[in-house]
């Protein structure tokens, strides 16, 4: 993944993530609807994960400790806890906190991808699979009241 050919793509990803984190706060744009907001966070988790995987792949590695698997699972749960909408409503009033929360998603994603890939070469793909699934399912209604309530 960390070949010379991929560097521009990774750069583009970093720019996209930075724009997603910084631009709404700078321009004072309000939050998107809840489902879309979950997807936005999943994107940051995913982007962070890709960067974490790319970092590990700079040099070939052997198997890591099984504890890396635990770290992967726990970071997955941590990402989900960060997605609890009540947390959004508490930090949304403070642009800096809101921005930091988004940075937090990218950081959790980075370490999740790092941990998965550190366990075994190319197992980072499982992390990305988890993040995509989490994003898709949370967008359908995580933390949302029933329609009409």
């Amino acid at each position, binding site marked *: 993944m960390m070949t010379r050919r991929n560097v521009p793509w990774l750069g583009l990803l970093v720019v996209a993530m930075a724009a997603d984190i910084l631009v709404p706060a700078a321009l004072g744009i309000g939050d998107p609807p809840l489902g879309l907001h979950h997807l936005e966070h999943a994107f940051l988790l995913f982007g962070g994960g890709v960067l974490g995987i790319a970092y590990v792949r700079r040099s070939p590695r052997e198997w890591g400790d099984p504890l890396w698997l635990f770290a*992967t699972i726990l970071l997955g749960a941590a990402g989900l806890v960060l997605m609890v909408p009540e947390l959004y409503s508490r930090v949304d009033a403070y642009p800096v906190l809101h921005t930091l929360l988004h940075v937090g998603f990218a950081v959790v994603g980075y370490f999740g991808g790092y941990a998965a890939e550190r366990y075994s070469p190319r197992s980072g793909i499982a992390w990305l699979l988890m993040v995509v699934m989490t994003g898709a399912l949370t967008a359908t209604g995580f933390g949302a009241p029933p329609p009409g309530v």
Partner: protein
Amino acid sequence: MLARQLERTEFHAEDAGLSPRRVVGIGLVIGLITIYGLAMVGGIMKAAQGNLLHLAPETFYALLTLHGAGMIATVVLLTGVAHWYFLREHLTLRVEVLLFAVAAIVWGLLAAAVAVLVGGFAPGWTFLYPLPFVGATWPAWATGLFFFGVLFVGIGFAIYCLDILAGIVREYGSLLNGLALDTLIPRLRRADGKVAPPTVIAATMVAIDGILTVSAGTILVIALLGRWASPNFPIDPLWIKNLTYFFGHTIANLTIYVSAGVIYAVLPHYTQRPWHTNKIYAISWTTSLIFVPWAWPHHLYMDFVQAPWLQLFGEGSTYIASIPATVVTIFGALLLVYRSPMRWRIGSTMFVAGLLGWLIGGAAAMLDATIPFNDVLHNTLWVPAHFHTYLLGGVFLFVLGFASHFAGERAAPGRFAKTAEWLFFVGLGGFLLTFYAGGIEGVPRREAVQPAPGPFLADIATGFVVILLVGLTGVLLETLWRARHSAGQGGEA
């Protein structure tokens, strides 16, 4: 720095005397003892429904919760260790990871057991929202502990799946090759011509779908724990019900596919013929990979607010997911057995009989998943009939077959073993028939007190459960006896 610290604290199971065989054996013994206990719980519930003994309704529903959740978690544990045992022939898998996975599932089971037996948690394994929180007869701590137990089981299964995915990518280069898609797409072919055997194809499918399922389960449990911690946490009941069935149905369903992986590995030992991969296997298992996670809406046809397209998609997915892998596995197994120098042992008998249970249970499931039939059979005893057929009469038989194989059965079964086997099969068949009869008569499921002819059928079922348990005791004793006598002779036949 974290990496260095982790390397310093690295745990090696073999240094602690935990060889792969021993860890598999530990998982097997814990799982079989748990299943035996939970089967007795099932018998007690049947006796209560038949008025042979009295259980207060809250006790009945607590036992129902324990039986349902416990059986699924235990079957995940048992099929997982069995498949792992054979996958080591093809993949580099680490025993430490299996040990962690087994420990997480066992902790999850213990937490759920305490929540139910001490706390009286009793909303059923589906814990359908808002049931665990509204009108509960149990303390709040029991609700939280049960959800943490579910989370632990999910974590154990996720660790297991992640390690298998890592092993597949390492050995076969990619997950596509793990599904043997290199037999269809020439540019995927490896220079050494190595193609994934059927047992690895099954593992690839299960591990990928397992990750998706556990992701759904984690969201479900975090949402429920959020509601547990804060009554203001908003939850859409339909959303959480969909997620509950996504997780619950799929994880139960996946145990069948794990079992198929065990069959691919073990049946050639008995028939003395190899089980080869071909394009049909690659197509069938890839189809199952795509559609198995989307079959669950067939449980929710009565939810009128559900989008109609989802209901139809669930119906279609049920057919598309189950038929290919089932057909190739059962036909493959029959072709492998036909005119082979088959050695009929307890293990091989269980495997072949299990195929029949898988077929019958699967057909009954598809019937129930067909919307016009579901109008009649929905939430009747037909539902437990079909899943008991493919779990008890399918997956559990594969587990018993594996246990016999693992114990090292060299000689043909004696009179004791044959008698025990027959008692087990007679008990199993009779017990399942009462469920189907109840379904046809419209007896509702999950009820402590059933309308007629429920109690009458429950009385008959109780008798068959006793026969089943006597037979199972004999089969397990025989397996234990063989394990002791083959110790030091190199394991299985």
